[in-house]
């Protein structure tokens, strides 16, 4: 009886703005939550990863990496997701993720930032919750600096992002991936 070894990848979609003269809400601009679900969803992301692997590494390594490739979780609002792949060929999957520039031939260009790699999904959940808390802290700090008032004053966008992030960390806590045995 042998456990099948997997690798989990925590990634984050960033939408770098091409023109932005008002940099007050720059954290919010990078995580653009107004994208419709028809353009960016787990299916289109996986299609794009496979396309990039095929372009750079060919059919052979696509076939190897494609064995247990699936998106475990993806939140369209905060644009954070978890991807599962085999432990042997995780490097090819990371290359495919990092080479992506557009998804679904959309006009807006995209950076996929690979945040963390792990062997178990529990560690990724802890890390993503910790990251969300840090992000909320950063947003509060930035708004305080912009206002020059010395105390925390929530703008519309920052309060929205706070709400989404807290919701997301609740969702991530619940994800479960049962152990497969050969």
């Amino acid at each position, binding site marked *: 009886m042998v456990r099948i070894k997997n690798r989990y990848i925590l990634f984050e979609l*960033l939408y*770098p*703005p*091409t*023109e*932005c*003269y008002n*940099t007050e809400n*720059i*954290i919010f601009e*990078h995580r653009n939550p107004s994208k419709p679900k028809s353009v960016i969803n787990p299916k289109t992301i996986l299609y794009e990863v496979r396309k990039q692997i095929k372009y*750079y*590494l060919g059919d052979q390594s696509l076939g190897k990496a494609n064995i247990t490739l699936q998106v475990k979780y993806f939140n369209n609002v905060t644009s954070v997701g978890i991807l599962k792949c085999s432990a042997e060929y995780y*490097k090819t999957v*990371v*290359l495919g*993720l*990092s*080479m992506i*520039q557009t998804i679904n031939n959309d006009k807006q*260009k995209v*950076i*996929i*930032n*690979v*945040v963390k*790699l792990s062997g178990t999904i529990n560690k990724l959940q802890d890390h993503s919750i910790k990251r969300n808390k840090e992000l909320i802290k950063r947003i509060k700090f930035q708004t305080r*600096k912009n206002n020059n008032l010395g105390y925390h004053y929530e703008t519309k966008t920052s309060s929205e992002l706070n709400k989404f992030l807290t919701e997301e960390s609740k969702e991530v806590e619940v994800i479960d991936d049962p152990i497969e045995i050969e």
Partner: protein
Amino acid sequence: MQCDLNIPFPKDVNKESLNKLELILHTLIELNYTHVAINKQLSPKMYYIPSKKQKQQMSQKEIQDLEEFDLKSDLETYFKQFELLEEKFKHKQLKLFTRVTVEIDDPNQLGSIFINLNSPSAKNRFDLVAILPLSEKGLSFLTNNNGSGSNSTNVDIVTFDYNNYFNGFHLKHKTMNGITRRGIKVEILYSSIFNTMNQSNLKFINNSKQVIRCCRKGIKTCIISSGASQNVHVRGKIAIESILDFLGLKADVYSRMLKENPISSLLNGRLRVKSYQQTIATGFDVMMKDSELEQKGYEVVNGFVVATNNINKDTEQEPPNKKLKK
């Protein structure tokens, strides 16, 4: 900490181009970068002063362009914009550095560049000095000991143009070893792999393989930086590692390329400017307080934050004694 020592400064200074530069820095913050150098590139047209014979061969338009361009004012605008950027990113985690790269076609034309860089308006204001050879003569400038070659002690980095094939020159072990023995680092720019125009992603793979081959796999010599003119071409740490793995490097090599080699080149350049004979340094270049740094396992060396390997020995468990079996 994470370094990116090549973010190009725009050639035409507009509101739009400066805004693009700012946006690149903002995306770098999202990707957890800490040390960034903004690069001013000087082409031979910018500093070249032709002789009377050469002027007769040139057309009138070229002579007019040469006379209109003023290097001193161009450098002044660069420093002005840099100070404005420094103020904007004061409260953020990013630390900014100045850098100049000089394109060299023929070393005999170089006379005026040293006059300009050593003038009181620009002297000791560039943290890093780099060189971009356009021909084999330009590369040999670094290996010469005589005459103008003695200025090569001030150089920190050698870069190449990765968007085009190396026309007319072939890199050799001998020349590159001569350069790297002086502590000069060789730079690889990864952003051209995302540029599919003119097959520049293929050219990048070809050129970087050549550079890695002649630098003995680049363990102690190579550094990697972006050279991105758009904020879309910038990537995080794990993504860059996967690109270097794709080029055929091993994990111990590319971890050095990302962290230790760029720090050492930054230290070298910074000490040249700020210290007396590289022994005594002055200034406050630390991002956090010292007590906070020690808790997180960092140390301050000459104004740079460096990770320490010393973990508390009490918490560390000693390995059990091995007993040999007969």
